[in-house]
């Protein structure tokens, strides 16, 4: 995919944005290193680290054994000595193999003994590519429910690059999910120079007044698609891209919902215990009287991710489901 220069920057893919962010951060700061399975010679299962070994060498781009707990643990130890490691999970599904290290060691260190662990844990997530039950995970809520972590899930190349850079520079452990469906399908403009996108800030992707659709990652695009269709029927949806799930940007959410008085949350994650619930509670607590209709959810089914295309399609949310829910909500 050739990169297209534009007036203010360059059109690049989501995947290229990730690669550039790592490249530029490693270039900027020798404390930044990358470790994970097949990240070196192979350049990563999705080629997000292609070229990094060539440029930064064997000490900074480390091919590891298949040992997720060791990868996360070692990254944490490196961060204690002043480095800023990026740990790659080959698929984000394998992050649960390091669950104890992340939730007990990494997440709690600063609170308990004042040990900052500036490290990024990143990997390809999400469905839509027939990866099946073990290669399509959206594990964000496990970590949103773990105090001490930051959780990022971007939807555009601009944000992916800017947020990954911000994550590397952050003094806390950050989980960074890269929706693999977006890797090569989404292109966008990024500035030529260095920039970061602040962690913890949502963004309004589309202004509207009839209802607020809150989403992130791949579902962001689905929501925008639905919003376009809704507009044709005279329903103007405001679309919010959360970008960071923890800490959650309550302000942007509340501001929008206080305007539109209706809220629909769309997530690819399964329903029960998904982030829509947390948003429902926040709205209830802080915008109860502003709501003219119920908070509604469009999410994946409460099942594992099935393999066969018709099953996966049925399992996943889509623009039609978002459209239908939004129409129903707009009637309140």
């Amino acid at each position, binding site marked *: 995919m050739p990169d297209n220069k534009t007036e203010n920057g360059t059109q690049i893919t989501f995947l290229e944005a990730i690669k550039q962010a790592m490249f530029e951060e490693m270039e900027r700061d020798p404390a930044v290193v990358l470790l994970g*399975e*097949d990240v070196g*010679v*192979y350049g990563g*299962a999705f080629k997000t680290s292609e070229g990094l070994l060539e440029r930064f060498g064997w000490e900074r781009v480390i*091919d*590891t*054994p*298949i*040992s997720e*707990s060791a990868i996360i643990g070692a990254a944490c130890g490196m961060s204690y000595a002043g480095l800023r490691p990026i740990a790659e999970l*080959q698929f984000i*599904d*394998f992050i*649960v*193999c390091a669950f104890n290290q992340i939730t007990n060691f990494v997440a709690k260190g600063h609170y308990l003994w004042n040990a900052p662990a500036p490290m990024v844990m990143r990997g390809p997530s999400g469905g839509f590519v*027939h*990866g*099946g*039950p*073990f*290669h399509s995970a959206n594990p964000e809520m496990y970590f949103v429910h773990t105090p001490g972590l930051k959780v990022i899930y971007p939807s555009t190349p601009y944000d992916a690059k800017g947020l990954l850079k911000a994550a590397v520079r952050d003094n806390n452990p950050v989980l960074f999910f890269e929706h693999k469906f977006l890797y090569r399908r989404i292109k966008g403009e990024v500035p030529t120079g260095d920039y970061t996108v602040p962690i913890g800030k949502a963004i309004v992707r589309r202004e509207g007044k009839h209802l607020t659709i809150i989403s992130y990652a791949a579902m962001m695009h689905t929501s925008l698609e639905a919003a376009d269709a809704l507009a044709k029927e005279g329903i103007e949806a405001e679309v919010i891209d959360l970008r960071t799930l923890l800490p959650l940007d309550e302000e942007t959410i509340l501001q929008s919902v206080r305007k539109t008085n209706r809220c629909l949350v769309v997530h690819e994650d399964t329903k029960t215990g998904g982030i829509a619930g947390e948003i429902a509670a926040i709205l209830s607590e802080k915008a109860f009287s502003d709501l003219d209709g119920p908070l509604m959810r469009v999410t994946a*089914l*409460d*099942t*594992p991710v*099935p*393999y*066969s*295309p*018709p*099953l*996966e*399609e*049925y*399992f996943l949310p889509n623009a039609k489901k978002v459209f239908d829910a939004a129409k129903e909500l707009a009637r309140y």
Partner: protein
Amino acid sequence: MKKELTRQQYLDLYYYMRLNRAVEDTMVKLFRQNKIVGGLYSSLGQEAISVGSAYALEKKDWLAPMIRNIGALLVKGVPPRDVFMQHMAKYDSPTKGKDGTSHFGDLENLHIVSPISMLGDLIPVMAGVAMAGRYLGQKIVTMTWIGDGGSSTGVFHEGLNFAATQKAPFVLILENNLWAYSTPVKRQVPIENLADRAKAYGISSYIVDGNDVVAVYCTTKEAVERARAGEGPILIEAKSFRRLGHAQHDPAEYVPKEMRAYWEGRDPIELYEKFLMGEKLLDAKGKKAVEEKINTLLDREREFAENSPMPPPEFASTGVYCTGDDCHKIQPRWERPIAEVTPPKSSVKAVWTVEGFGSGKSSGGANAPIHFGDTKNTIEIPASNGKVPGKNGAKPRGKKPVKVGAAGTTGKVKR
């Protein structure tokens, strides 16, 4: 252990290796026709391992395959159509499209446990099946496979260690194909022979040429019978090479050419054919007959698979829980008197005795010598038992022993 095979056994091994390869060749074609859903893994060049090891199991034994063990599934009795349909995510497949690849199982009849993608997880699971089988008096053995790369997972260690402490009748085949995705085994595992992992658990191990199907079979057979006899888990390292990339998408350019060339010259099927011909167990006609049999079979199986429908979308929402009376058909198949494991016969003294472990033997008596180790000295003392401290130097060990003793207290005092 049998030192000789019957003619039929020799030919079975040949048939299944050919079948294994033909099934996978067919799937490559289906893949190129975009009929395969998701990735396609290959065991090209490693067929002798799957076939030779699974062939050593009895019908009642259990196995759980990994991605490169389609050969083992075929030997165990899975029809090729099931393999095709799994990879095509069809409704008639064993998982009805819920999962793909070799991720399927059959608890009731074939005794196959489905893998998940996370490497190593099957090891404690199959250890558990083995323990349950022994508890029920079934005298079964369980088997699974792990890659050189997968042997670095934590669960490999936990599972094998637990199996060893329990002397579970479990055989683990460590398929060392020199690569884990793009990373050579040398960079993942800092030992020459991965069979040495067994030393951490005090269990027996074998190293076998993974391209020699008879060697794999005979070795596994011996291991299976030793496990069945109560010797505990056994680790077999089968040395071979992953001839293709990690999966279809991977051209594996990271593999040195000389290495690939070497192994291409040692194709397990070609080598075995030469052997069979030399021993007059096979001739050109026989070979042709096998080919025709397989072609006919696979044409039919592939056709069936291709004609199978995709699952209906709503099927996605069913089956999260086992509900209703007949969702759980697995009854424990007792092959020993239940009275042995129920009070009063099951009663024991709950102490670690000096002579050994608990009452020394399982409550099941000789029937189930379940626990590790002899029952002699439990009072453990360091090697230096009774000696004056300071005389007890450390013993440097490992591959680079240094000759200096550490008996500091007997050294001179620097004044």
